[in-house]
């Protein structure tokens, strides 16, 4: 698998599993517990025979003892499709945010793919939306890596419309500086449909703690926002940015969406382990 600079990262996350946080709809057999019952050798429960059931699944010994026909049921497992929606707006090109987003997506895709889950990619690129439908075949991780490397962040695209309608896993990697409210609602609806929603909030160290050098800072996505960042306004900036991030985390988590703030100087494999943890990075299920 040609994964270029991601080799070391993939080695670091090898063996990591990403279980679904809730039973997944039935389908292609996979690693996640499905809501449906199957015919596996493990016993789960009995159900009275109904017309149309496969007669081979009748428990004949129980029929002989009780003179009633019961079907023997076993737990079922299925795959969970995972779609990564990556924000490639101009603000993501700041500092190491884009590189962090790429590494996160590749690593998480590899983790998901290791459980035979199909993984897909949606990039809200500067000119158009690039899509890679979820696939479970080999080489999909390399394809995702190549696709990400081929994109340079530019003008912003709305992310809310890109959230899939199916009950799959949806992971959004963004700096949350775009259509956050719409995105939050879309992810909440996705979760209501039985899907699993993740929001990875990417921030840069320079945004968290800007240098004290005086400069006129400009928003790359809205050049009308042009304000002097001088020592006198630095503390106020830090306070307002901190309050905003806390508010975003509270509101997103309030919708049952798994939220994780990731700084661009973080160790990616550690972040991946927190994201895939059943308890989540914030200790919540």
């Amino acid at each position: 698998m040609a994964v270029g600079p991601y080799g070391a990262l993939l080695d670091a996350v090898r063996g990591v599993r990403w279980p679904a946080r809730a039973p997944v709809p039935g389908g292609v057999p996979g690693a996640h517990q499905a809501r449906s019952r199957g015919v596996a050798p493990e016993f789960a429960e009995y159900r009275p025979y109904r017309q149309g059931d496969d007669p081979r699944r009748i428990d004949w010994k129980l029929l002989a003892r009780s003179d009633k026909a019961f079907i023997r049921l076993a737990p079922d497992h299925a795959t969970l499709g995972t779609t990564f929606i990556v924000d490639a707006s101009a603000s993501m090109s700041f500092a190491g945010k884009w590189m962090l987003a790429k590494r996160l997506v590749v690593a998480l895709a590899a983790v998901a793919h290791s459980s035979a889950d199909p993984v897909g990619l949606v990039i809200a690129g500067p000119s158009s939306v690039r899509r890679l439908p979820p696939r479970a075949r080999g080489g999909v991780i390399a394809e995702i890596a190549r696709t990400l490397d081929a994109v340079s962040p530019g003008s912003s695209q709305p992310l809310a419309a890109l959230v899939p309608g199916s009950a799959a896993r949806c992971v959004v990697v963004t700096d949350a500086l775009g259509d956050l409210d719409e995105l939050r609602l879309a992810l909440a609806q996705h979760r209501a449909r039985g899907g699993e929603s993740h929001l990875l909030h990417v921030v840069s160290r320079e945004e968290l703690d800007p240098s004290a050098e005086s400069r006129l800072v400009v928003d790359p996505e809205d050049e009308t926002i042009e304000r002097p960042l001088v020592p006198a306004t630095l503390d106020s900036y830090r306070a307002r940015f901190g309050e905003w991030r806390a508010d975003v985390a509270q509101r997103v988590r309030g919708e049952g969406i798994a939220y994780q703030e990731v700084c661009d100087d973080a160790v990616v494999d550690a972040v991946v382990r927190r994201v895939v943890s059943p308890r989540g990075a914030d200790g919540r299920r």
Partner: protein
Amino acid sequence: MSFLAPLMLAIGALAATAVVALHLLTTRRPPKAVLPTARFVPVSDASAVARSSRPTDLLLLACRVLAVLLLGAAFAQPVLDLPGPSVRSVVVLDRSASVADPAVAARLAGERLTAGGALVVFDTVAREQSADSTGGAPSTAPRTAPRAASGILSAAFVVATRAGRRVARGADSVRLVLVSPLAEEEFDAATDALRAEWPGSIEIVRVAAVTDTARRGAVRLVSATVDDPLAPAIARLDVARGAHEVRITRAPPSAADSAWVTAPERVLVYWPSPGDAVPVADGVTAFGLHTATIVAPLVRMPLDGSSGALRQGAAREMASAPAVPSRVIARWRDGTVAATESALASGCVRSVGVGVPFAGDLTLRAPFDRFLAALVEPCGGARGRAVTDSVAGRLAGGAQLASARRLAAGATADRGAAALLLSLALVALAAEWLLRRRVTK
């Protein structure tokens, strides 16, 4: 160049520093930088105050700093230091009639006058002799003007102190040399106080004084009446010194009087009688060897009539001996001239406008004796004896030269230099205004 008020110079330097600091805190727009979270920066003026490591608008800054420094220097009262030796001299030369040999005094003064020093000559007035065109010491050659006036040391000390402050610029110390016989009449009540203004010792070079010889009975009253009130006072008069003769005439001077007075050491006093004029309470002061004032019922009499009579009677003598300008020897209390003296050939004629009434005991009192003594002094004033060595030693003080720094403390600023600095500051301000207009355009 030194400054009498260096505090102003320091204030100017502080102001210049503040100007530089303001240029470092200029309101230029800081450089642009991308920050995706710029929306969280508080809204404020984009051209906010920013610190810079280098001052902006260097030309404007230069003009402003220059203007502020020049203003500070101008208000610091600049004094230009004069080139010359570290020890300079101020020579005070007595040119009064008390000096027996002016040539000797001038030679002694010239020997002590150094380059960069000052020469002060004095009699009744003191003045600083200007330096010659070569920039060296001023000339001490005696002038040919008559020396009928007495010397006043007080005036000499005033001018000498002022000259000392001037020559002290750029020097370490200043030596004051006084070439004078130190006659009694050269001292007055202000002499000691004005001497104390000189912050050092005085090198006194004493020269010979004019020697007067006593001649009693030299004053003669020519009066038409036998009960002239001046008679008893003249009888009591003791002319202790002065080789001169005095003739007091109550009538206008005659030709004989005029002829008499042309001889050396003769004084003709025309002192008319007030007649029937009503005296009023008044005061008059005579300036002789000792100042004498009388306050009594007196009659103010005009002085012109006597001169006319004198001219009529002595026309021939005056044609050959031109009169020297008069000097005032007495004044009324309001400053009006009460008596004058005019030199005539080798003698002099005095006109007295103080009418002494016949009634009363004014002429019997001691103040009138002193007043009369002042009016019958020799031509040009009485010559007192030279003061004793102890008095001269007290005048000389110690052996320490005057410190130039202490002298400079009382110096006055060089107005020319201050005006020049002020003008340059105005030019710098004008240039700053022009530059600022160009920048704002």
